[in-house]
């Protein structure tokens, strides 16, 4: 509970509201959205803003607002899945690598180095290409492409913790290897993995959209912002709102995630105080002493 309160304090109300909004429409959007996102009505195709269809309809007469809401669901669902998969697998690899060390660590970290040195989208694209374009294959590909980041992160934490006195004493007390790893090292790694994941969600959302935009991720008719945008591109001249709205939704969501990540990073290691602030603080301090 305290952790959540601290997090809230660090992040602040506007960002919480922004992200909460997207999570809300992703979870409850089904019940809130006025139309079925996939229901076509060719009689009402390509309409602009109206009371009936707030954001208009696309070329097949599907309600844009409902599709935007469904897109939030797709994106957040994908992001969550990828983070869960990449985070847990990365933590297992990182913990093993950091705990055992030696040649195993060396080999694993060389592979991880490669994963980190090549852009994730390139790796994900190749994996999707091998397995075929599909939502689940995209999730799998992104998860594989994202594992190295978390493995490296977890390994750093675990390798630093392994030689700490408290792990030494656990070993002396006769705690088994499994117990040390599961009860003492994993929780230590979990913290930094979670923090990084929250900052990483924005990048992931962008990459899900990238792959779907290229026709390699979410397949029509399922609504996803990148895929909606690419479907609307041919009508850019007549109906620019069909391109602008999904793009804007994605941008705002990613801004939310990035602000969240920045706030968390700042709370974890605060920026060194600027000179002006320092002088101000010193003056206040001197005043207090004088009083």
């Amino acid at each position, binding site marked *: 509970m305290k952790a959540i309160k601290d997090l809230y304090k660090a992040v602040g109300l506007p960002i919480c509201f922004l992200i909460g909004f997207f999570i809300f429409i992703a979870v409850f959007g089904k019940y809130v959205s006025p139309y079925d996102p996939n229901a076509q009505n060719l009689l009402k195709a390509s309409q602009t803003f109206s009371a009936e269809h707030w954001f208009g309809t696309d070329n097949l007469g599907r309600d844009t607002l409902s599709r935007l809401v469904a897109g939030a669901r797709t994106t957040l669902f994908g992001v969550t899945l990828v983070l869960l998969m990449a985070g847990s697998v990365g933590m297992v690899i990182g913990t093993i690598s950091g705990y055992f060390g030696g040649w195993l660590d060396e080999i694993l970290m*060389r*592979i991880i*180095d*490669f994963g980190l*040195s*090549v*852009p994730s*989208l*390139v*790796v994900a*694209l*190749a*994996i*999707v*290409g*091998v*397995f*075929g*374009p599909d939502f689940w294959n995209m999730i799998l590909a992104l998860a594989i492409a994202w594992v190295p980041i978390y493995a490296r992160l977890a390994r750093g934490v675990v390798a630093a913790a392994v030689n700490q006195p408290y792990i030494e004493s656990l070993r002396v007390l006769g705690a088994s290897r499994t117990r040390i790893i599961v009860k003492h090292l994993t929780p230590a790694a979990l913290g930094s993995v979670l923090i990084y994941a929250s900052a990483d969600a*924005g990048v992931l959302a*962008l990459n899900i*959209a*990238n792959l779907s*935009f*290229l*026709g*390699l991720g979410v397949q029509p008719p399922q609504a996803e912002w*990148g895929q909606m*945008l*690419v479907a609307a*591109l041919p009508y*850019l*001249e007549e109906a*620019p709102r069909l*391109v*602008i709205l999904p*793009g*804007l939704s*994605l*941008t705002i969501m*990613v*801004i939310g*995630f*990035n*602000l969240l990540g*920045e706030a968390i990073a700042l709370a974890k290691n605060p920026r060194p105080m600027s000179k002006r602030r320092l002088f101000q603080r010193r003056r206040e301090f001197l005043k207090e002493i004088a009083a």
Partner: protein
Amino acid sequence: MLRIALNRAMSALVLVVIASVFSFILVAAFPGNVAALIAELRGGFVSQAVVDKVAEEYRLRDPLLYRYGYWVADVVHGDFGKSLRTGEEVSTAIEKRLEPTLVMIAGGGIVMLVVGLVLSFCGALWPGGLVDRFIRALAVVNISVPKFFLAAMLIYAFGVIMNLLPTFGFRGPTSWILPSIAIGLVPGALLSRVARVSLEEAMSRPFVITAMSKGFGRRRILLRDALPNIVPVVLTAFGMNLAFMIQSAIVIEPIFAWQGIGAYFVDAARFRDLPVLQSCLLLFSVLFIIVNLVVDLLVIVVDPLQRRAMRG
């Protein structure tokens, strides 16, 4: 200095080897019968005899290690195999498609450098002014804008509303402008932030105070004293962003209908064109590793402080 350079080159070489193994395994681990898939893609009736023939041709029945050896030997000789879909040699296709990608990355690099340096310089010239605040406000927004959305908006603004620039195809210098902006704008904003911070740091050094006490103007100090100091930092950031542009090209090329390597990669992924996929993954990885290596080495050459530290 040479030892450090060799060290970097060695680790880059290791990465290239891992890249080749990864590219190979990815396709070797293809789920299902590759021979049957290839036979199917060639069209016609797929009998066991045809499948056997394909397997023989692609040496699919040999042990994995041998196949890796054959593949590496071929690649080193410049033979990347043939596209399953078109039957075209992958190496000639890549050669043909290299030009648009290189033009896009070069154009993006120029845009990035101009945007980054102009913004950061104006920010440093009038600290706390409009440009300065703009850079800071943009910091989060620019990494959050999807590349394809930015490109679509550029097409809409310059192609549809103003009808100024061509938005489709790779046809002469005017058609290069929009893609270059689309790919270079966000890295430019990132670069401006890095350059602004290091300019500020350079402006708080003692030599700047000396120059001020001599009565030189702020612009002159910025250009002649502070600017040389930020070269290594800007170079590193520039190189890293340039390397990431290789990735952005994958997304931006299809929007502008450019037939570059990025579009080639995407097409291969769409049609499960395994040899092309393999070659593209290897090519992109190696390009990325090389650009990073070159940047690392350049920084050593450019930065006298690092050079001295290494010699000492």
